[in-house]
C-alpha cells in the first residue's frame, strides 16, 4: 500500500518534471527492474553469477542507451566505453573479492542470517563480484552519456575539431561531473549503511577493527569500485567519441550510420 502511494507520487513528479519523457523513463525503469529480477532468478538457479551478471549488465546498458537515446554515434561511443571499462574492471573486482573474501556474511550480519543454513552450494565471492558489477552499471552509463553528449555538442558547434580537441573537451566535462557523481554514490551507500555506522559507534570499534571487519570492508570497497568505474569511463569515453567523430574509427562509423538509414528506409517501405 505504502509502496503504491509512493509509486504514485513518483509518477506524479516524473510527469511534472519531464512530461511524456517522464513516462518513457518509468517504462525503461520497469524494464531494468525486470532485467535485475531475471539476473537474480538465473543466479539462484545455479548459473555462473559472474558471467550472468556481465551479460545482464550489457543487456541493461543496451536498454538504457539504445532504447532511451536511439542508435547513433553518441550511444555507440557510450556503449563501447561502458563495455571496455566493465571488462577491465571485472578482473580487478574478481581478484579483490577473492583476496579479501568479501562475499560472506560477517559477525554483524548474524542478527539477519541466524537460523539459516549456510550450505547453499554457490560460491559467495562470485556473487559479491556480480553484485558489484550490477551496482556500478547505472553510474557507469550515466557518466558515459554525459561525456559523450558534451563531446558531440562540441563537434556539432565546431565541425573541424581534431581528435585531441574532442578528447580534451570530454575530459573537461568529466572533471566537472566527478564531484557530483561520487557524492551521489556516497550518499546512497551512506543511507544504506547508517545503521551500520551506529553499530560501530555504539560498540566503539577502533580503526583496525573497522578496516578488517568484513561488513565495513564490503561497503567501503563497493564505494571505491563504483567511483573508480565512473572515473575510468571518462577518458575511455572521450577517446572513443573522439575517434568515432574525427579519428581512425570515423569511416567505420559513417558506414554504420548509412546502414542504419538504409535499414530504416527498408522498414518504412515494407
Amino acid at each position, binding site marked *: 500500500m505504502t509502496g503504491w502511494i509512493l509509486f504514485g507520487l513518483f509518477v506524479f513528479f516524473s510527469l511534472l518534471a519531464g512530461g511524456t*519523457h517522464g513516462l518513457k523513463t518509468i517504462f525503461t525503469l520497469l524494464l531494468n527492474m525486470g532485467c535485475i529480477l531475471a539476473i537474480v532468478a538465473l543466479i539462484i538457479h545455479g548459473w555462473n553469477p559472474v558471467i550472468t551478471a556481465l551479460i545482464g549488465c550489457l543487456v541493461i546498458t543496451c536498454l538504457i542507451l539504445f532504447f532511451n537515446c536511439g542508435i547513433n554515434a553518441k550511444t555507440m561511443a557510450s556503449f563501447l566505453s561502458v563495455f571496455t571499462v566493465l571488462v577491465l574492471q571485472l578482473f580487478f573486482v574478481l581478484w579483490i573479492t577473492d583476496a579479501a573474501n568479501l562475499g560472506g556474511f560477517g559477525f554483524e550480519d548474524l542478527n539477519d542470517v541466524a537460523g539459516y543454513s549456510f550450505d547453499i552450494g554457490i560460491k559467495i565471492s562470485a556473487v559479491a563480484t556480480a553484485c558489484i558489477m550490477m551496482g556500478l552499471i*547505472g553510474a557507469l552509463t550515466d557518466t558515459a552519456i554525459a561525456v559523450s553528449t558534451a563531446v558531440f555538442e562540441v563537434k556539432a558547434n565546431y565541425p573541424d575539431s581534431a581528435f585531441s580537441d574532442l578528447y580534451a573537451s570530454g575530459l573537461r566535462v568529466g572533471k566537472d561531473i566527478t564531484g*557530483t557523481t*561520487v*557524492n551521489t554514490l556516497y550518499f546512497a551507500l*551512506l*543511507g544504506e549503511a547508517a545503521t551500520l555506522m*551506529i553499530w560501530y559507534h555504539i560498540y566503539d570499534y577502533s580503526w583496525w577493527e573497522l578496516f578488517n571487519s568484513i561488513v565495513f570492508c564490503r561497503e567501503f*570497497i563497493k564505494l571505491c569500485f563504483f567511483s573508480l568505474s565512473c*572515473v575510468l569511463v571518462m577518458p575511455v569515453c572521450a577517446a572513443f567519441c573522439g575517434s568515432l567523430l574525427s579519428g581512425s574509427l570515423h569511416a567505420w562509423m559513417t558506414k554504420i550510420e548509412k546502414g542504419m538509414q538504409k535499414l530504416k528506409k527498408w522498414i518504412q517501405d515494407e
Partner: protein
Amino acid sequence: MICRLLTQAKQYISENKRTLLLFAFLALFLSGAVLFTYFDAFLYDCPVGEVIEVKIEKTGIYHSPIGDEEGHALQTLTLRLINGKNKGKFILCENECTDSGVYDETYRPGDRLLLEIQNGAYTITGLKRDTVAALVFAVLLFAIVAVSRLKGVMTLLSVAVNGMLFSYALDAYLFHGVNIMISALCVSIIFCVICILIVCGWNKKAFASILSTLVSVLIVTVLTFVTIWGCDFEGVFAEGLQYLIIEADYRFTFLAMLLLGSLGAMMDICVSMAAGLQELIEKDHGIARASLNKSGIAIGKDMMGTMVNVLLFTYLCGSIPYIILVYHNGMTLDYSIISLEMVRFLCGGCGIMASVFFSRWICIRLLRGRDQS
C-alpha cells in the same frame, strides 16, 4: 610506425615533465602506503599470524533445505606470529570451512590472519583485510587525480569532511539524546552547503544550487514522510532494518536513512541544472525566460532517466546475497525482502524528479534576475 610513436612519446614527456613527475611521485607514495599496511602488524593489539602451510581434510557433504550439495572441510593451518612478544613463534590452528564461504573463510598460504587468545589457545577471528582496502582506495585516488586533477582531490576531501560530520551527528544522537531525524536534517543541510561550495566555489551559481536543493529536499521529505507515516508503515518492514541495535525509534532511523540516501542525487541534479542554465545566460544575457525554460526542460530530460537508474542499481544490488540465502533455505521470496530497498528507491526517485522541477524553476528566477525592459 614504432619510431613515430616513440618520437611522439618523447615529445609528450618533454612537454609534460612536471605533471609526469608529480604522477610518478604520487604512485610511489601510494604504493608505499599500501606496502605499509601489509607490514603494519606491529600496530595491532591482537596477535597476527601469517599462514605458512595448509593441510585440508574433507569432512563430508552437507545439504541445504532444498537439496544443494556443499562440501565441508577442516583446515589445519601452520601460522607464524608476526607481532607481539611471541613474534616468530609457530603455532597450529584449526579452521572449519565450506565451498561456498557464506559464513566462513578458506585460507591460503601467505594470508595474514587476526587471532585471539581464548583459554590459552589461539583462535582465528578473521582475515586481515586492510591491505586490500588500502589497495583499492589507492587505485581510486590515483585514477581520480589523474583524470580530474584538483577537482578529484576536492571531491575526496568533501567526502572525508562529510564522514566526520556524520560521525558527530551520530554522537549527538547516541550520547546527547537528539532525535535522529532532527540531527540527520541538520547534518544534511550542512552537507549540502559544504559539498556545493566545494564543487562550485563561492558564486551565484552555488547559491542557486543550494537554495534549490534545500527546497526540494524539504518538500520531498515532508511529502514522503507524511505518506509513509500516514500509512502507518504498512508494507514497509522497517523493523527488519539491517544492523539495527536501538529498536526504540527504528521508524525515525529508517526515515533519516531515506533522507540521507536521496540527498546526494538531489544535489547532483541541482548543481548540473544551475551550471547548464548559467552557461546559457552567460552566452546571452538578454535570453528570454521561455527559451531558458525550454533548455531547462531539455537538461532535466537528459539527467533524470540515468540518475534514477543509478539509484535503482545501487540500492537493489546490495540485497542479492540475502535473497540467494533465503531462496536456498527453501523460503518463499516475496516483496517483504526488498520492501526497504524499494521504498528507498522510490523516495530517491521522487527526490530526483522533484529536484529536476524545482531547480529549473528556482535557478531561472535567481540566475537571470529582473527583466531589463
